[in-house]
C-alpha cells in the first residue's frame, strides 16, 4: 500500500494565505507572536508588508482586525484556538461579529492533538463558543485540500468566519480531481444503510477507517464530512438520519456544544433520532504525543469503531 501523504492543516493555512495573496490585494494577516507555529510565517516571508505581528496581545489583535476591516481590508487573525476563540471571545463577539465586520479568524492548534503542551493549550471548546455568536460562520476542515478551500471560501464570504486548523499532520483524503468545496454543505464520503457517522476535522479520516472496520463486522456505515459546523447542512443530516435511523457524531472537541450538539439540535427539532456523541467527554486534556492522546481519549479509528459497535448492539 502506498504511503499516505500527511499534512497538518496549519501548514495548509499558511500556504493558502500566501497563494491567495495576489488574487486578494486587501488580504492582510495578523499574528500574536506565533507566526512560526500558526504558519503565517510563510505568508510573512512572501508579503512582509501585509503581515502584522501584534505581539502577545490577542484581544487587541482582534480589535485591530476589526478596525482594519472597517476600511476595507480583509484581515486574517491568527493564533491558537485557545486564545483566538477563548481569550478573545468577547472581542470577537462585540468588535467583530456584532458590527458584522469582514474579519477571518484562523485558529490553529485546536483540540487535544496539540499534544505535549497539554491542557492549557488544548482547546476543546472553540466550536461551541464560536457557534453561539450570531452570524458567525464556523469551519473545521478535514485535510490539506479542504483547509485551503476553506480559506478561499472565507475570503469569498462577506462577514466574520472562524476556521479551525490542527497541529498534527493528517492524511490527505480529498485530493480527487472532482473535489468541490461548498460553504455550508456536508459531503457524503461513504454510503451506508445501518448508521450515519457524522465527522468533522481530523476525525473524518479516522471515521473513514472506522467505517471500514465496521464493514468487516457487517455494519454498513454512511460517512458524512461536515466541514462547516455553522451554518450546518441540516437537509443532508436530516435525510441521512431518516435513512439510517441512527446517528453518531465524531469530533476532536468537547461533546458539549460542538458538532454533536449542533446535530442533536437539528435532529431533535426535525427528525428525532438516537444519537451517540463521540468527542472529549467534559474533561481537560493532558500532555503526550498527539497520536497517543487520540488513542487514549478514544478518538482514533479503533476507539470510534469500538463505540459505534457498542451503540449498534
Amino acid at each position: 500500500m502506498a504511503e499516505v501523504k500527511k499534512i497538518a492543516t496549519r501548514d495548509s493555512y499558511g500556504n493558502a494565505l500566501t497563494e491567495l495573496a495576489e488574487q486578494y490585494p486587501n488580504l492582510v494577516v495578523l499574528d500574536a507572536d506565533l507566526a512560526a507555529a500558526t504558519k503565517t510565517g510563510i505568508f510573512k516571508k512572501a508579503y512582509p508588508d501585509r503581515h502584522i505581528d501584534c505581539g502577545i496581545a490577542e484581544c487587541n489583535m482582534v480589535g485591530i482586525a476589526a478596525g482594519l476591516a472597517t476600511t476595507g481590508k480583509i484581515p486574517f487573525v491568527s493564533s491558537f484556538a485557545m486564545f483566538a476563540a477563548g481569550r478573545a471571545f468577547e472581542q470577537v463577539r462585540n468588535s467583530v461579529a456584532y458590527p458584522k465586520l469582514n474579519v477571518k479568524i484562523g485558529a490553529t492548534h485546536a483540540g487535544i492533538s496539540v499534544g505535549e503542551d497539554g491542557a492549557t493549550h488544548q482547546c476543546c471548546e472553540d466550536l461551541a463558543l464560536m457557534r453561539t455568536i450570531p452570524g458567525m460562520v464556523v469551519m473545521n476542515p478535514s485535510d490539506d485540500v479542504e483547509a485551503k478551500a476553506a480559506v478561499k471560501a472565507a475570503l469569498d464570504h462577506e462577514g466574520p468566519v472562524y476556521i479551525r486548523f490542527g497541529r498534527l499532520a493528517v492524511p490527505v483524503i480529498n485530493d480527487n480531481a472532482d473535489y468541490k468545496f461548498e460553504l455550508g454543505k456536508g459531503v457524503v464520503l461513504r454510503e451506508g444503510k445501518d448508521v450515519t457517522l457524522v465527522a468533522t476535522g481530523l476525525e473524518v479520516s479516522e471515521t473513514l477507517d472506522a467505517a471500514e472496520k465496521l464493514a468487516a463486522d457487517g455494519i454498513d456505515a454512511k460517512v458524512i464530512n461536515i466541514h462547516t459546523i455553522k451554518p450546518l447542512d441540516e437537509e443532508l443530516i436530516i435525510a441521512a438520519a431518516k435513512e439510517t435511523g441512527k446517528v453518531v457524531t465524531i469530533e476532536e472537541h468537547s461533546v458539549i456544544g460542538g458538532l454533536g450538539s449542533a446535530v442533536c439540535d437539528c435532529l431533535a427539532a426535525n427528525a428525532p433520532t438516537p444519537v451517540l456523541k463521540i468527542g472529549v467527554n467534559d474533561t481537560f486534556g493532558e500532555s503526550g504525543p498527539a497520536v497517543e492522546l487520540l488513542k487514549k481519549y478514544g478518538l482514533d479509528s479503533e476507539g470510534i469503531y469500538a463505540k459505534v459497535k457498542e451503540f449498534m448492539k
Partner: protein
Amino acid sequence: MDTLALKKTANEVRKGIVTAVHSAKSGHPGGSLSAADILTYLYFEEMNIDPKDPKKADRDRLVLSKGHIAPGLYSTLANRGFFPVEDLTTLRHVGSYLQGHPDMKHIPGVDMSSGSLGQGISAAVGMALSAKLDNADYRVYAVLGDGEIQEGQVWEAAMFAGARKLDNLVVIVDNNGLQIDGNIEDVCSPYPIADKFKAFNFNVVEIDAHDFDQIADAFKKAKETKGMPTAIVAKSVKGKGVSFMENQASWHGSAPNDEQYAQAMADLEKIGESLK
C-alpha cells in the same frame, strides 16, 4: 475658530444629551456632558467629515471607546446634520436605530460599534494602521474614559500604537475623575495617566476639557507631532453644565425624572442666554 459659536453648539449638544436620556429613562448623562466640548470641537472644527456622505473613504474617523456616552456622540452627530435632532428622543426605544451603545450598522456617522470598554481603542488603532498601510492621510480619534483605562486591552493597544509610531492617531482621555463605584482614585487609581501614555511612546498633552482654546491647541500639537501617537488627557467635570449633575458619580448612569429634566434644561437655557 469661532469660540462663541462652538460654546453655543456645545450647549445645544448638552440639551440633546439630557433630552435623549430623559426620553429613554436610562443612559449615561454624566460622561456625555463631560465630553460634550471635545466632541463638539472634533465634529464642528477638527475632523474631515461630511454629514451628507458619512462613509466617504478619506474621512477622519472617530471611535467612541467609552461607548456608554452614546447620547453625547448622537447629539453631536445630530446637531452636525447626520440625522434629525428630533430622533434623539427615540434613544433606547424598541425599534429605534439609536441603540444604547454606538451601532455602526445603523447610525449615520458612527464609525465603529462600541460599548464594551477597552475595545474601541484597538479598532481605532486598526483604522490608523490601515491608513498607514495605504499611505492615506485620514486621521483617527478615540475617546476613552478615565475609568475605562483600567481595562488591560487599552494598554495592549497603546503599546502597539506607540511601537508602530501611529502619528495619525489621537487618543483623548475624558478625565472626569468619577466612575460608577465612585472616585477613580478610590476604585483603582489609573494615575498618573500622562506618564503612562508617555511610557508607551505617546506625545501627551494635558488640557482643560472645557476650554476651546486649549482643546484647539492640543489637536494642533497632535497634528504637528510626527513619529508618535498623541494622547490628550482632558481634565473635565462630570455632568458639566447641569448644576445638580456636576461632579456626582450617581449621574454616571441614571436619567433625570420630569422635574429634574426641567431643571437641567433651565440650567442649559441659562448658559445659552449668557452666550448671547
